[in-house]
């Protein structure tokens, strides 16, 4: 296999490798007739990622030297990533990148042709491997949404970078909701902040899902694809099914395809109800820039005798300091009867609709040795490690 990447595409390739590195520690490189595929899977087999670069992405692409079989290999992600570690450097100094698989010496040779005649050659040792194939079919997922990656990127900004999991669901009025997910620990005294972002249907190019549909998946793994998609200015599609079934995230353009398949939390129905019931507790905020809040908004959410509400608007209003509007007091919350009851008045948490079972990301893949090589069949996402070996 030999291929040559030039110009801006070198950085695109680098970014793809960065994305893949968020998922797994080993990179499966497989030249196919329809392009070069880079795949990885995480150690718990709960996330799979694949980028397929079409032959047109390359200035020159040769899947296999004539007469030879297609080689495929597995290399340490760390090693391959180190070649593309500095994206800034790739953009500024690298003019061409040449990748060649040398079967005889068992080396993957990556050569960066840089400015001023500098040439950096990396010889990475690889292992022969079986083909990493995950079988999945986005068309079999009943729910789907598609939006520019930028929209999803902005939606994800409010979440802390350390957040592991997020729940994506469709709420009332076909609003798409992303909420931070934390494992419930019954007696933990320090609760985590819950962040929720609510987007309107209009932000999506396509939204095909029922209200109440929701899945929870690993945000960190998703961010890998999201950042690539944002930088390439592509649309991102999310295909999903019931909780527990894998969710498929795809991006596509004429030169490349990206597919990330992530396991979702397998929960009983109480979980998706959770999303719905919380919606019911809180009236859907009809926030327009200049409206005064309804007294009801606050009354529903009072903690016993305490109530505060502060609102500010900016932008068109001009100066930040606005004349204070005195609101007529809303319905008076009940006065607390006396000092004794105050200390206990730390509002009792309302009943949680069923404690979710301990988190389990079911492994996506069952190691089936029976699935044959070649065309994927059937909608069940099964990782088939081919029984026939080598390259």
């Amino acid at each position: 296999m030999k291929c040559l990447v030039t110009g801006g595409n070198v950085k695109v390739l680098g970014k793809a490798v960065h994305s893949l590195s968020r998922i797994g520690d080993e990179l499966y490189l497989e030249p196919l007739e329809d392009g070069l595929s880079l795949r990885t899977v995480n150690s718990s087999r709960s996330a799979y990622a694949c980028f397929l670069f079409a032959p047109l992405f390359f200035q020159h692409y040769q899947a296999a030297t004539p007469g030879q079989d297609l080689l495929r290999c597995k290399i340490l992600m760390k090693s391959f990533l180190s070649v593309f570690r500095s994206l800034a450097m790739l953009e500024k100094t690298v003019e061409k990148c040449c990748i060649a698989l040398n079967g005889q010496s068992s080396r993957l040779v990556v050569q960066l042709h840089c400015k001023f005649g500098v040439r950096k050659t990396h010889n990475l040792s690889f292992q022969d491997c079986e083909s990493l194939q995950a079988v999945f079919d986005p068309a079999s997922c009943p729910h789907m949404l598609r939006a520019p990656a930028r929209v999803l990127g902005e939606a994800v900004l409010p979440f802390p970078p350390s957040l592991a999991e997020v729940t994506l669901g469709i709420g009332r009025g076909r609003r798409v909701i992303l909420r931070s997910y934390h494992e419930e620990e019954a007696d933990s005294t320090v609760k985590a902040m819950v962040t929720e972002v609510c987007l309107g249907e209009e932000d999506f190019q396509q939204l095909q899902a029922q209200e109440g549909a929701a899945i929870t998946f690993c945000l960190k793994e998703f961010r890998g694809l999201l950042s690539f998609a944002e930088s390439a200015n592509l649309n991102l599609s999310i295909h999903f099914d019931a909780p527990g079934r894998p969710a498929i995230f795809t991006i596509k353009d004429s030169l490349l395809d990206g597919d990330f398949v992530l396991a979702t939390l397998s929960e009983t129905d109480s979980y998706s109800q959770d999303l719905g019931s919380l919606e019911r507790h809180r009236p859907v905020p009809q926030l327009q820039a200049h409206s005064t809040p309804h007294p009801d908004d606050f009354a529903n959410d009072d903690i016993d005798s305490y109530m505060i509400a502060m609102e500010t608007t900016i932008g068109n209003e001009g100066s930040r300091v606005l004349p204070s509007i005195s609101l007529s007091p809303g319905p008076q919350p009940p006065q607390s009867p006396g000092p004794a009851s105050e200390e206990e008045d730390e509002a009792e948490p309302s009943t949680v609709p069923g404690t979710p079972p301990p988190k389990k990301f079911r492994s996506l893949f069952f190691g089936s040795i029976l699935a044959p090589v070649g065309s994927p069949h059937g909608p069940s996402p099964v990782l088939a490690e081919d029984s026939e070996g080598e390259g």
Partner: protein
Amino acid sequence: YGLKRGISNMIAKLAKTCTLRISPDKLNFILCDKLANGGVSMWCELEQENFFSEFQMEGVSAENNEIYLELTSENLSRALKTAQNARALKIKLTNKHFPCLTVSVELSSMSNSSRIATHDIPIKVIPRKLWKELQEPMVPDPDVSIYLPVLKTMKSVVEKMKNISSHLVIEANLDGELNLKIETELVCVTTHFKDLGNPPLASESTSQDRNPEHMAEVHIDIRKLLQFLAGQQVNPTKALCNIVTNKMVHFDLLHEDVSLQYFIPALS
């Protein structure tokens, strides 16, 4: 807006957990001098009308129309960070599975669609019996009161000093001079700041007794000073330092409409 977030960022750097006191006309961020804080205390005050177009609150009762909440400052600063380019911000006290301060931000977006981000910050309501520990600290009569030099400069000096010694002497006089001194067996380093200016003294009598060049000094933990300086990203409108010899140093800052007071006790 930027200011509000600036404040919460500052508080987050100064105190991991702090108390938010809400009263009809102002908001206070409080850190009281418990052992856990190493004796440091902080009092930050802002007038609600400078920030909010609508403000509505009801405290425990008519005579005690205040609310005291304990929260993790970083949560608040992260929540407000979302509001950077927002159309509207709403903060209210809610109870969703646990008591929290809900910060609801209407994000600006290209289309007319409304995009809302909500942060539920878990809080602990502080019962009234503990309120007396959270009152505005008494500011004792200082021996010397002086305007501070540029905080960034002070911070870089103290940062370097931290590598040499764990404690430092801060001293100043009524002649506009402030020194930061550290001393170990091997080395002694002093940084001198001159021509800082002193605010007019409160009482006439003290000024007559005192030799203006006489230094009032206090020995403090260098990390506490550094933590305070690290929280100051923007140079304040006004910055004052009050020293009570061998007792404590009191920093009194004003960032536009927000006042911040920080007390560091002397090392015993």
